[in-house]
C-alpha cells in the first residue's frame, strides 16, 4: 500500500499511482517518478509512514515529538501517589500494535502506530550511533561522487546536507518543509545502505518527480550530501473537500500487471475511479469548520497544486484538529488530484471501543472491585463508542472519575485499534484505593492546673479515631465514622462522633439521574450566638448547644454545583452552660457581679432539652465559574426546615432562608491563564424567617464574618426574621484582589418575637451596618471593618470566603 498516512503527517510523501482514481489504495511498492510522467493523469497523494524507512539515526524534530506524545498516550496522572508512566507506555503499546502492519518500502499498517515504532527505533538507533566511530571516505577531496560509488563497508560522516530544487535551481533552506522529510542529519554517521534506503524513501514518497543524492568529499574525510529534487505538481484546483475516512475498509488495490493490455488498463482505471467515487460517497463529512475550509481555498488559489501546498493544507487541517483537541485526527491522504477538486482524507479518530481496566499495585491487570457502570457513567458522551476521540473529553473523563475518589491512579489512554483501522480504543486504567482505612490522630493538651501550673494529671490525651469503608459492593457506597475527644481518659466530657452511610446511585447505576442517599448519626457542640452581648456588654455567660441525632437525606445533583437535598432530621438538643450543666435559661451578669439565671429560655420545652423531628430541604442553584481566577455568576440557595409537630411541645414550624448572591463581572477580559481577573461586583441578600415555634437556638443571628462583618457572631441580635444585604467590589491587584464592602443586617423588628427577647436582654441593637476594605492574601482575608453601631473599626483576619 503506497497510501496511508504518517502518524503525524510530518512525513507526508507523494506516492504516485498510476491511475487517477486509484486513491489511497494502490499497494504498489514500486512507485516511481516515471509514473508521474505517464500520460494518464492520475496521481494520488498519500502520506506515508516514516516507519517504513530503515532505521536511521534521526533526531525527530521536537514538533513531531510533541504531537507524537499527544497521539500516542494521553495519560493523565492523578492522586499523585505514584508518579507514573510517561507517555511512553502508550507509545510502546501503539508501536507494537502497528508493528505488524509496517512493511517494507511501500507501506505499512496504520500510520500512527507505525510512527511510534519509528520513534522508538529512532531513539534506539541514536543510542547505538553515539558509540560508533566513522571512517574517512578515503577519496580525494572536493570531488562529487554518485551514491553507488561509495563503499558499502564504510561508515561515512555527513558534514552537511544541502537541498537543491532543480526547477528553481536554488538551495532550499533548512526551514523548508522538505527538510523535515529527510531523516539524515548533518554530523550523522551513515553507511551506504542507509543512504540508499533514504534515497529510496524519498523517491517513493511521491513528493518528488525526481530526486537524487550526491556526495561531495571533504578534505577532513567527511562527506557533504546534496539532495537534488524536482517537486511534484498537479493541476490547479479550486474546490476543496474534506472527508472522514476513519473506520472505512482500506480497499485493496489490484496490481497493475506489466502484461496488461491497454484495454485491461483502461478498465482497471475505470474501476479504480468508480471505487474512489463510491468511497467518497460513503465517507462521512468531516468536522472542519467553514472558516478553515475557506482558508484552505485561499491556499489553493495560489496556483498549481504542489507537494508543498498539500503539505501546507495538511498542516492547516491537522492544526485545527489538534487545536480542538482531536489529538488522534490525521490527514491520511489527498485524492482526486489533477481534477479541480482536492479531496483531503482525514482519519478523525473514531472511538471503536472503551475499555475499562483495573490494575493492581504493581500495574498488572486485575479484576476490580468497582462495578464498571460506576466508571462508565462518569464518561462524557463524547468519549463513548462512535464519537471522535477528543483529548478534552478525555480530561473531563479523568476529572469525573477522579471525583469519585475511588482510585489512586487513573489513566485515560487512546490507542489505535488494530482490528479496525483508523479506530481508537480508549483505555481507562484504574488503580483502586484500599477499601478499608482507619486513622488515628492524637494530640496532647496541657491544661493549666491549680495555680496555673500544669501538673501531670492535667495533661490530656486527645485525638480522633476514624475509619472508612469505601466502595462497598463496588457501588461506591461507603460507611465512615469518626470519634473525636479532647480527653481519652474522660471521653464523656466532650465526645464528638459521626457515623455516616452514603449510598449513591439511588436510582440505579445505569440511570442517569444522580441521587445519593445519606444517613448519619451525629453530634455537635456549638457556642450559641444567640446568647452574646451587645457592644455595651462584654461578658455574657456562654450557652453551648449540643445536638445529637440521626439525619437521613437524599441529594440530587443537577450539575456539579447545583443540587437539591431533602430529608428528615431527628435530634435532641441540649443547652448547657459553661460548666456543662444543662441550663434552661440564658444567664446574664448583673451589674453587681452576680449571675442571674433568668435570661431568655434556651429551649422550646423550657427544660434545657428539646427533642424534635423535622423535615429539611435545601435547593442550591449555582452557576458560578472562574474567570481568570475571579468568581463570576449567580448563586441562590433556599433552605427550609419544616417542623412536623413531633417532639417536645409538638414543635410545628416553618423556618426558611433564601440567599441570593450575584457576582457581576464588570469588564470583559480575555480568558487565559496568567491574564488578570476582571473586577467583580458582588451583591448579596439573605432573608431568614420562621413561622411557628422558634426555640432560641434556631433563631437567626446577625453579625459575624458570614453575616455582617465587623461585628462578633450574634453581636447585632437574634431574631425571628432577618434581612442581610451586602455589596462588595473586588478589584484585581496583581494575582489577588482587594475589595471594599458595605453590609447591613436587620431584625425587621422581629427580635421581640423570639421568646425572652434575647436581643434586648443582652442589649443589642437588632440592626447594624458596617463597611470596610480588605485584601485577599492566599486563603486569608485581611480586612479592616468599621462597625456602624459603635463607629469603631478593627482589623480582622479570616479564613475562607464571605460569600
Amino acid at each position, binding site marked *: 500500500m503506497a497510501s496511508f498516512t504518517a502518524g503525524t503527517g510530518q512525513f507526508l510523501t507523494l506516492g504516485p499511482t498510476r491511475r487517477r482514481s486509484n486513491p489511497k489504495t494502490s499497494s504498489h511498492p514500486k512507485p516511481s517518478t516515471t509514473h508521474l510522467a505517464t500520460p494518464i493523469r492520475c496521481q494520488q497523494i498519500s502520506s506515508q509512514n516514516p516507519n517504513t524507512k530503515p532505521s536511521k539515526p534521526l533526531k525527530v524534530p521536537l514538533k513531531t515529538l510533541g504531537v507524537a506524545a499527544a497521539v500516542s498516550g494521553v495519560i493523565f496522572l492523578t492522586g499523585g501517589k505514584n508518579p507514573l508512566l510517561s507517555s511512553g507506555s502508550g507509545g510502546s503499546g501503539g508501536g507494537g500494535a502497528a508493528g505488524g502492519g509496517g512493511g517494507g518500502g511501500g507501506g505499512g499498517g496504520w500510520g500512527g502506530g507505525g510512527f511510534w515504532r519509528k520513534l522508538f527505533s529512532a531513539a534506539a538507533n541514536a543510542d547505538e550511533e553515539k558509540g560508533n566511530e566513522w571512517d574517512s571516505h578515503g577519496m580525494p577531496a572536493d570531488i562529487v561522487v554518485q551514491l553507488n560509488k561509495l563503499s558499502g563497508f564504510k561508515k561515512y560522516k555527513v558534514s552537511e546536507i544541502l537541498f537543491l530544487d532543480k526547477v528553481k535551481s536554488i538551495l532550499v533552506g533548512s526551514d523548508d518543509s522538505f527538510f523535515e522529510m529527510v531523516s539524515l542529519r548533518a554530523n550523522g554517521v551513515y553507511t551506504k545502505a542507509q543512504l540508499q534506503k533514504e534515497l529510496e524513501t524519498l523517491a517513493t514518497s511521491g513528493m518528488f518527480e525526481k530526486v537524487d543524492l550526491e556526495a561531495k568529499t571533504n578534505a577532513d574525510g567527511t562527506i557533504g550530501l546534496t539532495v537534488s529534487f524536482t517537486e511534484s505538481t498537479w493541476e490547479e484546483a479550486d474546490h476543496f473537500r474534506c472527508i472522514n475516512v476513519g473506520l472505512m475498509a482500506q480497499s485493496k488495490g489490484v496490481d497493475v500487471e506489466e502484461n496488461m493490455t491497454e484495454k485491461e488498463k483502461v478498465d482497471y482505471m475505470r474501476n479504480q475511479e468508480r471505487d474512489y467515487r463510491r468511497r467518497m460517497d460513503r465517507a462521512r463529512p468531516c468536522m472542519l469548520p467553514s472558516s478553515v475550509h475557506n482558508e484552505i481555498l485561499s491556499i489553493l488559489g495560489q496556483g498549481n497544486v504542489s507537494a508543498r501546498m498539500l503539505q501546507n493544507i495538511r498542516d492547516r487541517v491537522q492544526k485545527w484538529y489538534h487545536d480542538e*483537541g482531536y489529538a488522534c485526527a490525521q490527514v491520511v491522504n489527498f485524492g482526486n488530484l489533477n481534477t479541480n477538486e482536492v479531496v483531503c482524507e482525514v482519519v478523525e479518530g473514531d472511538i471503536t471501543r472503551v475499555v475499562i481496566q483495573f490494575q493492581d499495585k504493581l500495574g498488572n491487570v486485575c479484576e476490580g472491585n468497582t462495578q464498571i457502570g460506576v466508571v462508565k457513567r462518569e464518561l462524557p458522551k463524547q468519549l463513548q463508542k462512535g464519537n471522535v476521540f477528543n483529548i478534552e473529553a478525555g480530561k*473531563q473523563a479523568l476529572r469525573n472519575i477522579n471525583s469519585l475518589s475511588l482510585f489512586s491512579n487513573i489513566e485515560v489512554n487512546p490507542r489505535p485499534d488494530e482490528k479496525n483501522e483508523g479506530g481508537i480504543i480508549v483505555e481507562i486504567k484504574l488503580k483502586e484505593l484500599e477499601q478499608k482505612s482507619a486513622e488515628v490522630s492524637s494530640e496532647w493538651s496541657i491544661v493549666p492546673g491549680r495555680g496555673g501550673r500544669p501538673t501531670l494529671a492535667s495533661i490530656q490525651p486527645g485525638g480522633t479515631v476514624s475509619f472508612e469503608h469505601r466502595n462497598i459492593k463496588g457501588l461506591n457506597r461507603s460507611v465512615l465514622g469518626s470519634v473525636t475527644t479532647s480527653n481519652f481518659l474522660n471521653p464523656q466530657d466532650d465526645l464528638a462522633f459521626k457515623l455516616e452511610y452514603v449510598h449513591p446511585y439511588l436510582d440505579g447505576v445505569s440511570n442517569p439521574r444522580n441521587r445519593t442517599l445519606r444517613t448519619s448519626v451525629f453530634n455537635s457542640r456549638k457556642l450559641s450566638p444567640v446568647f452574646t452581648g451587645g457592644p455595651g456588654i462584654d461578658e455574657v455567660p456562654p450557652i453551648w448547644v449540643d445536638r445529637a441525632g440521626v439525619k437521613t437525606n437524599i441529594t440530587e445533583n443537577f*450539575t456539579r454545583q447545583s443540587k437539591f437535598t431533602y430529608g428528615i432530621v431527628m435530634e435532641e438538643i441540649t443547652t448547657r452552660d459553661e460548666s456543662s450543666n444543662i441550663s434552661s435559661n440564658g444567664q446574664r451578669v*448583673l*451589674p*453587681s457581679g452576680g449571675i442571674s439565671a433568668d435570661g431568655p429560655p434556651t429551649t422550646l420545652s423550657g427544660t434545657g432539652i428539646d427533642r424534635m423531628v423535622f423535615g429539611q430541604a435545601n435547593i442550591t*442553584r449555582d452557576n458560578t465559574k472562574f474567570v481568570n481566577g475571579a468568581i463570576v455568576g449567580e448563586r441562590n440557595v433556599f433552605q427550609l426546615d419544616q417542623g412536623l409537630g413531633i417532639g417536645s411541645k409538638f414543635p410545628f414550624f416553618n423556618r426558611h432562608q*433564601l440567599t441570593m448572591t450575584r457576582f457581576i463581572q464588570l469588564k470583559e477580559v480575555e480568558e487565559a491563564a496568567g491574564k488578570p481577573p476582571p473586577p467583580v461586583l458582588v451583591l448579596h441578600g439573605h432573608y431568614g424567617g420562621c*413561622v411557628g*415555634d422558634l426555640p432560641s437556638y434556631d433563631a437567626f443571628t446577625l453579625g459575624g464574618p458570614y453575616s455582617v462583618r465587623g461585628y462578633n457572631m450574634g453581636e447585632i441580635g437574634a431574631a425571628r426574621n432577618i434581612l442581610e444585604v451586602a455589596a462588595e467590589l473586588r478589584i484585581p491587584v496583581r494575582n489577588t484582589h482587594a475589595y471594599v464592602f458595605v453590609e447591613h443586617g436587620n431584625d425587621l423588628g422581629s427580635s421581640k418575637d423570639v421568646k425572652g427577647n434575647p436581643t434586648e436582654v443582652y442589649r443589642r441593637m437588632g440592626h447594624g451596618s458596617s463597611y470596610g476594605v480588605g485584601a485577599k492574601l492566599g486563603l486569608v482575608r485581611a480586612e479592616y471593618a468599621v462597625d456602624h453601631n459603635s463607629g469603631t473599626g478593627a482589623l480582622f483576619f479570616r479564613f475562607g470566603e464571605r460569600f
Partner: protein
Amino acid sequence: MATAREWVGIQKFPLATQTALLEILGTLKEKEMDSLTVLVMGKGGVGKSSTVNSIIGERAVAVSTFQSDVPRPVMVSRERSGFTLNIIDTPGIVEGGYINDQALELIKRFLLNKTIDVLLYVDRLDSYRVDNLDKQIVKVITESFGKEIWRKGVVVLTHAQLTPPDCLSYEDFFARRSDAILKVIDSGAGAGVGAPFRKREVLGHAIPVALVENSTRCNKNDGEEKILPNGTSWIPSIVKTIAEVATNESKSILVDQKLIDGPNANERGKMFIPLILAFQYFFVVKRVQSWIKDDIAKAPKSSWE
C-alpha cells in the same frame, strides 16, 4: 374571697376618713360592685407595701426597708359590710438596674385568673428625673397585661411630703413630676406590643395621679387625718380615685393564661404553615429548579461537546 378578713383597720382611721371611705364604698355598692381588686406595681423601694398598709390601715404586708421588698406577690383582702377590697402587693420588678424577669413571672403566675380593676403604678414624687428603667417597667407592664391596663391605671407618687427645690411651688413640682411620669407611660405603653398607642389614646383618658405619704411623721389635720402639703387628706382621696377608675367605662382586665404569655409569636401564623409550605414548594423550589434547568441549557459547551 371567702377568707377575706373583716376590714378592721378602717376603724382605726380618723373619723373623717372613715366616713369618707364608707361613703365611697357605698357608691361602689350602688354601682353593683361588691369587690375591687387593686394591683400595685412599681420599682423596688418606692413604698408599695407601705402604701398598701396605709390604705388598709394595718400592717398587713411586711415592709422591708432595705430588703428587696416582698419576695413574692401578696394579696390582702379585707371585707367591710359585704364589700371586699383586694390589694395585691408585688415585689419590685427591678433588681440591680434590670427588669427581674423571674419576679415578673411570679407576679404573672400569681395573677392568673384574677381580674384587675385598678393598677396602682407606684413611684416616688421626690425623684427628679425619669430614666430608661422607668420606661422599661412601663413597657414590661404593658407587655404583660396589654396596653388596656393603663385605662385602669393610677399613678401613685409616694413620699409626697416634701419641700420642693427652690423656686418651685409644690404644685408646680407635682405637675412636672407627674407630667414626666405620664409621658413615660405614654411612650412606654406605646413602645409596647402591638400597634403603637396613638397619643390621644392614653392622654385622652388622662391617667389620674394620686399622692401618698406613708411616713408616720406625715402632717395631720385637725381631724387627725394624714394630709399632704397641699392640705388634702390623701387616704380618702386615693381611695376615691381608685373607686373612680374602677368604675370608669373601661373594662377590668382579666388575667388569663393568654394574657400572661403575651402575644405568643410562636403561635402566630401557625395555621398558615401548610399554605406557606405549598407556596415555597411551588413558587420558590420550582422556580429555582427551572433556573437550574436554564443554567444547564445555557451552560457554555466545550467545542467538542
